[in-house]
């Protein structure tokens, strides 16, 4: 059995590629995956910056191929097929310890585009809930993800990584200040009403931006959000007019087609007297046609463009990241210990059973040649039991202790070899140890 992770992220794939694999509802894909004989459990995380499949697989090699084929078939959206070489270059595969560590790092926002950003934890929780809801989550991932959430909580409490997180909105403000001298007399338009927009709205308000408008497909959601931040709410049908009156546009809304295309923006520019327009598109798939950046006086940044800012952000926070990494490592070892302990149960059981079998057979042989009264026979049996228990106590205790550490697996293997447990298991059933049993 193995824990596998196959995925792509902002580190390996361009936004063009990532948006092809972005998925809103992971449940149908997960149901198909766990129906495969090689995969027992699966979780699918699909965000703006990453698409990752995590699986607990009984046949690792076959499962790995199945997860890759999932990217090639189930997750691949419509449109021209992605070249195999391009997909291969974008996908990464992690196994066991590396996969556990990656899941923990993602939940702690260490691997995020904007290190320390708070959104990712909610997104990981949503992915986990979706897996639980469709029955794709079992005892292993059901233990791993809560551990990841606990690790994220530790990182938040024990480091300053989450303090003053450099959010997308903050990067947007820094960039906007290179275009506009003052933001107080500028108007922002936020398209969408999700978590990212809410955070951006909060941040922009705090940075003293003048008027803020929220436009959404469902005006009621926009109104609810706008009311909380003193912004105005609009429907998407008002976009041309809103564009005319806005200097900064931030979009993060679902949809297959770009909302802002060159003709629409060109018209708005003409009407606004060619005043500069700064657009940030953090939607996946993208909400603004990249060709808009070719227009004069329009500065368009998408998620990939923000990565350089995130890199500098990551450098600044290196010390906090190092502390967070130490927490992640400790939690990873803790989880691996648990996983190993799970795998050790059959070994311990087999060892005890083997000792008991020897004790019984030797006792029966000895008693058959002696004419002992009932009381004496019971005393002899107690004696044999005591000897076996005392003999086993030290190695079993030591084995349980060592399972928490790095040498746990080596001790487990040594125990199986010394007591010939695998020979016996093969004699009995022909099956090896299986932690899920």
């Amino acid at each position: 059995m193995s824990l596998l992770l196959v995925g792509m992220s902002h580190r390996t794939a361009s936004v063009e590629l990532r948006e092809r694999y972005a998925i809103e509802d992971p449940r149908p894909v997960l149901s198909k995956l766990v129906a495969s004989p090689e995969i027992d459990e699966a979780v699918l995380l699909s965000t703006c910056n990453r698409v990752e499949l995590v699986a607990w697989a009984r046949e690792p090699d076959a499962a790995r191929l199945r997860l890759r084929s999932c990217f090639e078939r189930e997750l691949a959206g419509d449109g021209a097929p992605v070249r195999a070489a391009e997909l291969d270059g974008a996908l990464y595969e992690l196994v066991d310890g590396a996969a556990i560590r990656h899941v923990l790092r993602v939940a702690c926002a260490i691997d995020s585009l904007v290190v320390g950003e708070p959104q990712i934890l909610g997104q990981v929780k949503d992915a986990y809930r979706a897996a639980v809801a469709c029955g794709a989550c079992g005892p292993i991932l059901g233990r791993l993800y809560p551990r990841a959430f606990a690790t994220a909580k530790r990182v938040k409490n024990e480091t300053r990584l989450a303090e003053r997180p450099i959010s997308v909105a903050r990067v947007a403000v820094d960039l906007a200040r290179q275009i506009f001298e003052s933001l107080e007399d500028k108007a922002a338009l936020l398209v969408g009403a999700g978590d990212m927009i809410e955070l951006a709205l909060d941040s922009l308000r705090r940075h003293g931006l003048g008027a803020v408008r929220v436009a959404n497909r469902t005006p009621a959601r926009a109104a609810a959000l706008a009311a909380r931040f003193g912004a105005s709410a609009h429907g998407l049908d008002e976009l041309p007019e809103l564009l005319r009156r806005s200097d900064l546009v931030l979009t993060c809304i679902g949809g297959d087609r770009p909302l802002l295309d060159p003709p629409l923006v060109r018209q708005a520019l003409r009407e606004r007297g060619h005043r500069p327009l700064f657009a940030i598109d953090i939607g996946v798939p993208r909400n603004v046609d990249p060709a808009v950046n070719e227009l004069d006086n329009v500065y368009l940044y998408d998620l990939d463009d923000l990565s350089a800012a995130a890199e500098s952000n990551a450098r600044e926070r290196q010390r906090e990241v190092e502390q967070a990494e130490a927490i992640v490592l400790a939690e990873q070892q803790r989880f691996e210990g648990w996983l190993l302990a799970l795998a050790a149960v059959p070994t311990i059981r087999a060892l005890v059973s083997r000792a008991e079998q020897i004790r019984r057979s030797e006792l029966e042989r000895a008693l058959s040649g002696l004419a002992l009264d009932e009381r004496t026979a019971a005393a002899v049996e107690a004696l044999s039991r005591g000897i076996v228990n005392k003999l086993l106590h030290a190695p079993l205790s030591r084995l349980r202790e060592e399972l928490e550490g790095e040498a746990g697996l080596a001790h487990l293997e040594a125990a199986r070899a010394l007591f010939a447990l695998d020979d016996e298991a093969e004699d009995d059933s022909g099956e090896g140890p299986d932690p899920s049993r």
Partner: protein
Amino acid sequence: VTGLGVRARRFLTLGVALLALAALLHGAAFFELHRLEPTPQLTDLPLAVSLAAWLLVLSFLALQLRLRTRALAVLVAPGAFLGTVFAAFSASAPESGEVGSALWSHLHVLLASGGLALLGVAGAAGGLYLVHHRAIKRKHPVGLPSALPSLENLDRANSIATALGFLLLSLGVLTGVLWVETREGRLWPGGLHANATLAVWLVYAVLVGARFGTKQSARIAALGAVTGFVLLAAAVIGVGVLR
């Protein structure tokens, strides 16, 4: 210029302070020059260039007090330095004053040099705007706040300097006409310098009309400011050197 980072801000502040000190000394030199008998003619090209260099620095200092455009120093300082070096190494013996036309000639050189200086600042702002615009468009400056002024401020500096510079240049042309009329009794002297300057003035008239009469984009205005200043420098200084 694009390499200016956060740390460069300290150097910029130092640069601006040194420029201010240099402008003070340069001004003192002009004051001393003015006390000479006979007073040197500003129509002398090296002196006019030196005056333009001094006014360039003064215009920059005045503008950067209002707008946060210290980074313009990276273009203004070398320009002023080259102008001053040119003036120092090509200075000739002071000519005696021209009776009757001294006022107009002084005014002409003063106003035209002021115009040249301000349009130089506009050109520098335009140049910096184009550099910064290109960097932002190409997604190079992400994240860190740059030492470069915002595009909005560079455009504002360009706009103010162009408007004032064109006004002074126009007055310079007008006083030049009056100077020629006083001295020679005709309105237009002809010659390469006068014709080239008039042609550039017409170019600027179109640029200013487009800039303030229509809703021109800031990038086009920046391009116009750079082009205009290159033509003006060629017409005023280049032609003067060739003579």
